[in-house]
């Protein structure tokens, strides 16, 4: 395809990089001996205390590998040991753990460059895990560490630099650099690379000025895109990790690795890994254009698909489709994304779905007039910043995508927060006086972006929006602006985290897929809408419970290993359909993962053992929630907006479907009944079904009827440590 513009044109921010580096003051320099992993593990981790400026190494024990495996598991274990039940997110002992997992960094199999970040979340007050691409995690591992832990708080803004070739770890005051991420990532990449060719060996983690003030703050992980000559960004988006990062006064984490090679993991059987990698690469090459078009559109291919199935969130999840869908459909994004260049966020990822919209001329704010590459939008961003807020103008979606990223704000949470605020505006809970003059009418892209600027400046109504839906519900109710039960019904959060961008009203399994999660309603645990609502292949509570056992655990495994989920099921073998109802599991790809695991670690494993590996960590995280004061059935209760129609307008938008359900499923003749009466009947029926789903899921997971893992369950997964049992016992009666 011909590119009709110069995709390499963009504003540069490195003019003063050398002078800014000269202003650094090294607070600590620590020498270390880099080492490569053996069979995926380096067997040591790095701990940095920013309060005491201490750097120490910890050995990875056999028990850690056997039970917690790596990635998310290591993060949870270290966090458990770092904090107490009374620790708050902004206490110095709160830990940020970044761990890439044993399979991360391999270049043989697509989607193998992930890091998992774990911390105590400001949004939820429980542990959060977030899976992110970019080069930091793999380069950290190839410097010699399976994980990086950061505790304490610096006295002033610092950067932490792990430099493999120089064999040093430094903590440096860095007073002058702008830390908005698209600037910071570029500056620090230039400062710590030896030369232009070395940019690819630098990974930067940063969070921008929005993360100074917002509980929806995220982290940006960089990677250098040599074709564009640009530093790109991927996000550890969920749970407010960016706010913890900035509260510790971290301006950036920088890792500088040595020269990349294909087998730095020193796999047990490298040929075995490349063999399965080649099979997947061929599938992507041969079939992606007929399947999801990930290479040309990324996950944004889903926008019109979700609309067609009435699953696209529109106007704060009230509706599932919109007449203007064509304005933000995948064809629009395909034209905005520069085509024909590699968009993989790690080496060897042929799926290459990290699409970039080049030459976006910034329309507002401190970077007005600059020309930037926008990383995305992915589906979640297009839906969250677009349809869910009634915004169907691609330029505004790109603008808010850019500012969310550079300010360090999660596009998913920000989209859901804005959608909630906009519905409050629609219903008179908010007005111009209460928003400080911001018109939050559906579709107002300019106001939407102004909220972001206010968050970054730490002022105005944006500052309130940036604290999340739960905070807004309580704040608005406290001011007497709205009815709290109604705002709880329409506010799309569970456990304090905002929903990601799928409508679950007509899929009971997905209602559980969101609300029964450990960290909050993020679809990376379970996405069952097609299986349940469209295919109708899991009709009973037991069927749904089985799906809510297998899929969350299978997906958990990606977070243990340092893998991306997308190559599992956004591409499939030509004959995958032969598996019928099991096709959704993509059995050949599951086998690939077992091969990859064995090839790298040298350990053979069955699919059942893979699930057991995840189940130990999953149950541990559930107990961890309990330890932090969150647990029991009540913590898994969804907002009614995700379960059924809250308002008359929602009911009427699907009146035929809902009336039919009344007649055929609830056994009530809708004739002669008011909308309010019919809504009440639906609510009773739907909430009863949700409770029955919980009963079935808890039983399948080996938990009590109040969502507490039993002692037998803890023992089965060998996590019956005394301190774990002590947390659970008081809840078992």
């Amino acid at each position, binding site marked *: 395809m011909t590119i009709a513009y110069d995709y390499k044109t963009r504003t540069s921010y490195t003019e003063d990089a050398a002078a800014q580096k000269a202003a650094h003051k090294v607070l600590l320099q620590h020498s270390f001996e880099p080492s490569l992993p053996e069979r995926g593990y380096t067997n040591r981790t790095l701990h940095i205390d920013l309060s005491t400026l201490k750097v120490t190494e910890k050995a990875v024990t056999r028990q850690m590998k056997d039970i917690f495996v790596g990635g998310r598991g290591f993060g949870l274990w270290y966090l458990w040991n770092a904090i107490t039940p009374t620790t708050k997110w902004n206490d110095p002992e709160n830990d940020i753990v970044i761990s890439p997992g044993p399979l991360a960094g391999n270049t043989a199999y697509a989607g193998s460059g992930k890091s998992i970040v774990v911390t105590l979340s400001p949004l939820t007050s429980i542990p959060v895990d977030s899976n992110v691409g970019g080069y930091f995690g793999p380069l950290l591992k190839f410097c010699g560490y399976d994980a990086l832990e950061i505790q304490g708080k610096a006295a002033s803004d610092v950067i932490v630099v792990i430099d493999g070739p120089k064999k040093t770890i430094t903590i440096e005051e860095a007073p002058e650099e702008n830390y908005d991420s698209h600037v910071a990532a570029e500056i620090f990449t230039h400062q710590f690379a030896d030369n232009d060719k070395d940019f690819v060996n630098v990974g930067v983690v940063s969070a921008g000025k929005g993360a100074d003030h917002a509980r929806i703050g995220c982290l940006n992980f960089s990677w250098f895109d040599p074709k564009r000559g640009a530093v790109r960004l991927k996000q550890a988006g969920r749970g407010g990790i960016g706010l913890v990062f900035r509260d510790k006064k971290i301006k950036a984490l920088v890792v500088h690795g040595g020269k990349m090679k294909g087998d730095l993991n020193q796999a047990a059987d490298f040929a075995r890994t490349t063999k399965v990698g080649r099979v997947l690469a061929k599938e992507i090459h041969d079939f992606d254009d007929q399947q999801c078009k990930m290479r040309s559109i990324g996950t944004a291919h*889903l926008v*019109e698909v979700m609309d*067609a199935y009435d699953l696209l969130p529109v106007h704060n999840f009230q509706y599932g489709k919109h007449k203007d869908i064509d304005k933000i459909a995948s064809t629009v994004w395909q034209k905005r994304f520069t085509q024909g260049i590699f968009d993989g966020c790690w080496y060897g990822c042929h799926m290459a779905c990290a699409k970039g919209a080049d030459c976006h001329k910034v329309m507002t704010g401190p970077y007005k007039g600059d020309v930037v590459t926008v990383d995305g939008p992915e589906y979640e961003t297009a839906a969250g910043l677009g349809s869910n807020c009634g915004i169907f103008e691609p330029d505004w979606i790109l603008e808010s995508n850019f500012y969310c990223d550079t300010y360090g704000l999660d596009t998913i949470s920000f989209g859901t927060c804005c959608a909630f605020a906009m519905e409050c505006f629609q219903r008179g809970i908010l007005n111009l006086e209460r928003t400080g003059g911001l018109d939050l009418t559906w579709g107002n892209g300019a106001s939407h972006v102004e909220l972001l600027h206010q968050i970054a400046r730490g002022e105005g109504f944006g500052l309130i929006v940036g604290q999340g839906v739960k905070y807004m519900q309580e704040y608005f109710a406290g001011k007497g602006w709205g009815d709290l039960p109604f705002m709880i019904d329409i506010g799309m959060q569970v456990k304090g985290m905002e929903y990601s961008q799928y409508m679950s009203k007509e899929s009971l399994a997905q209602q559980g897929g969101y609300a029964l999660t450990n960290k909050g309603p993020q679809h990376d645990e379970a*996405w069952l809408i097609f299986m349940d609502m*469209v295919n109708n*292949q899991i009709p009973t509570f037991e069927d749904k419970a089985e799906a809510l056992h297998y899929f969350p655990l299978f997906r958990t495994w990606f977070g243990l290993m340092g893998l991306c989920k997308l190559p599992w099921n956004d591409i499939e073998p030509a004959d995958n359909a*032969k598996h019928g109802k099991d*096709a959704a599991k993509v059995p050949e790809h599951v086998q690939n993962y077992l091969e990859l695991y064995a090839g790298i670690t040298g350990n053979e494993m069955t699919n059942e053992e893979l699930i057991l590996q995840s189940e130990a960590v999953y149950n541990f995280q559930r107990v961890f929630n309990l330890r932090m004061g969150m647990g029991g059935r009540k913590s898994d209760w969804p907002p009614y907006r995700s379960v059924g129609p809250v308002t008359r307008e929602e009911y009427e938008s699907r009146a035929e479907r809902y009336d039919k359900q009344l007649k055929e499923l609830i056994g009530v003749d809708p004739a002669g009944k008011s909308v309010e009466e019919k809504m009440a009947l639906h609510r009773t029926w739907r909430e009863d079904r949700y409770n029955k789903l919980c009963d079935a899921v808890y039983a399948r997971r080996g938990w009590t009827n109040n969502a507490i893992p039993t002692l037998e369950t803890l023992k089965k997964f060998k996590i019956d440590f005394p301190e774990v049992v002590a947390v659970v016992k008081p809840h078992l009666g």
Partner: protein
Amino acid sequence: MITVNGDRMEWHDGMTVAEILEIRNYIFRMIAVQVNGELIKRGTYEQTSVPDEADVQVIHMISGG
């Protein structure tokens, strides 16, 4: 009448798999279609007729997320 993913649906003589997908607005590309338990090859949906009283399963893969 036929059954599509558990729902009853009007049928007419000569009805094809492609027609069913269009009526149901099943635009997702990663699907597997079975008619009375028999897998229908992709690329043949327009030529494949569905008999009356058929049980049609249109399995959508997961994707997303």
